[in-house]
């Protein structure tokens, strides 16, 4: 079981209020991703759930039990740190066995569990090495191994892949997703990475300055952002915005349209502009178009597009894919 409920969770560091008030209900077995700009309190929220920080106010309830004042060990959660936080003096085997040893399990049982975990994570050949002799991806797997042996009620990950190179990140992303499918344990995952958030999550929590802006499935967030912040944050490249006359036409204070929902033409369109950056990625082409009076827009079209830096183009949004925002930033 791993149902985690946050009720009016509040956290201050001295006079600084980092988390004003957060309510969340994370269902058993769910994969929840926290995203948000740097410094918005993602790590703090995760550490509050883990019990590594004390609550200033509010309650944390795991499986119906109020654990607000419990020690980290009592909460039976496992955490994977960004720096892996492996014990450098112990071999991989001892690292993975550590939580079991602390729980007072007998040696034969420990060996069996460690071997099983090592096997499922492809670590069997490295059991007698110390972490210093492993690659980044292997260390990451050891950290995951140390987390899974205790069969926790939920896993907490704080940017676990940010120290890995791009290719390895993709692999580990898939491994973690597979692990979740196999274990069906609740996972809470903090990341900066759009792609990780969109691909891994059952539901995403978008945070800004310690507040939950929206909590929903990846496609909900993409299709129906509740406000301008979420709209701008989810999606890559970012959504384009326009105000003034263009917005008034749609009865809104501001309108937004995604790069993938724009048409580029050399002959006619809504805004005329000059290409200031052309990124040809093969499958896609991103154009940064500096328009005469509406700002710079990014467009996304297919890879065959033969338009280059300095060309004059016309861009227009698909009118049925326009997001409208009021003066308060909320979606209309």
């Amino acid at each position: 079981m791993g149902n985690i409920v946050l009720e009016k969770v509040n956290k201050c560091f001295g006079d600084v209020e980092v988390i004003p008030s957060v309510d969340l209900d994370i269902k058993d077995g769910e994969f929840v991703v926290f995203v948000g700009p740097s410094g918005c309190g993602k790590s703090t929220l995760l550490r509050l759930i883990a019990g590594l920080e004390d609550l200033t106010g509010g309650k944390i309830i795991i499986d119906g039990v109020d654990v607000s004042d419990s020690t980290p060990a009592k909460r039976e959660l496992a955490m994977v740190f960004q720096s892996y936080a492996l014990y450098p003096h112990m071999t991989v085997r001892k690292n993975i066995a550590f939580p079991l040893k602390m729980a007072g399990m007998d040696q034969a049982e420990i060996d069996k569990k460690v071997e099983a975990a090592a096997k499922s994570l492809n670590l069997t050949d490295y059991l007698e090495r110390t972490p210093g002799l492993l690659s980044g991806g292997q260390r990451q797997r050891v950290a995951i191994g140390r987390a899974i042996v205790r069969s926790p009620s939920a896993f907490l990950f704080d940017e676990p892949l940010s120290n890995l190179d791009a290719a390895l990140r993709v692999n580990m992303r898939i491994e973690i997703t597979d692990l979740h499918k196999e274990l069906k344990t609740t996972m809470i995952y903090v990341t900066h990475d759009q792609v990780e958030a969109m691909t891994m999550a059952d539901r995403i929590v978008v945070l800004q300055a310690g507040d939950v802006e929206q909590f929903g499935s990846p496609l909900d967030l993409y299709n129906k952002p509740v406000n301008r912040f979420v709209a701008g944050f989810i999606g890559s490249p970012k959504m384009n915005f326009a105000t003034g006359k263009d917005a008034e036409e749609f009865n809104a204070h501001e309108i937004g349209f995604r790069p993938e929902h724009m048409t580029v033409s050399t002959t006619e369109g809504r805004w005329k502009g000059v290409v200031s950056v052309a990124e040809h990625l093969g499958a896609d082409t991103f154009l940064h178009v500096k328009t005469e009076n509406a700002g710079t827009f990014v467009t996304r079209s297919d890879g065959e597009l033969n338009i280059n830096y300095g060309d004059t183009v016309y861009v227009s949004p698909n009118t049925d894919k326009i997001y409208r925002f009021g003066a308060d930033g909320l979606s209309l």
Partner: protein
Amino acid sequence: MATKHTKTLSRLMNLPAIGLLFIWMIVPLTMAIYYSFQRYNLLKPDQRGFAGWFNYEFFITDPAFVAAIINTIVLVGGVLLITIIGGVLLGLLLNQAIVGRGIVRILFISPFFVMPTVAALVWKNMLMHPIYGMFAEIARFFGGTPIDFFATIPLLSIVIIVTWQWLPFATLILLTALQSLDQEQQEAADMDGASAFAKFRYITLPHLARAMTVVALIETIFLLSIFAEIKVTTNGGPGTDTTNLPYLVFSRALQHFDVGGASAGGIIAVILANIVAIFLIRAVGKNLEA
């Protein structure tokens, strides 16, 4: 130093310094070796000449020699043990966020800056003196009999004084090591359900192992040659109870004016110190690799 070129260059640049150090070491050493094979007593200057191994034999068979070796071991071992254990405990304490931490730290370090002679005099006359000393005063206040430290427990008294001087050093080094302990490792251990003791045993202590060997190495080098504290307080007595190897050499040279015998003692001390140093450097080296 990656390439061959930089290696040769760095060796070349090191040469003058190494050369100077080598001369610095080799001249007195050769002289000591030379004198150790000479019959040379300042009281009988006419009886000079080659002595063969006599000086060595004489020094080693002296009953004071065995006592001196034992005293040296007790002194070095005792001080090492207390300073390392005490240093870890104090380091843990000073690593906490206590009020006035900066001041407390400076107070703790200050004994290290007191000259050994001065420290020994203060301890002898103001603290451990059986009549005027503070400890005697305290003992009388509680109705006990004051201990005559240097008469009844002379070697332990020396150990106490030297420990007082070296504890700050050990604390300082170990505190620095503690501060470099990774916070996330501690938190990971918290999540893993480790008790405070288990965290100390499995994470802090292994992390400190390297710093401990460094402390042991440096302290040993200095503790092997403790002299001022003994000279000022007990003069090596009562009997030979507090005579360590350096003090024995001193007493050969300047109390019996036996230059040959003292040189032989010096050479023996050098050999013993080197044996200890080799073992310690090995230990440190192994720790540094890990």
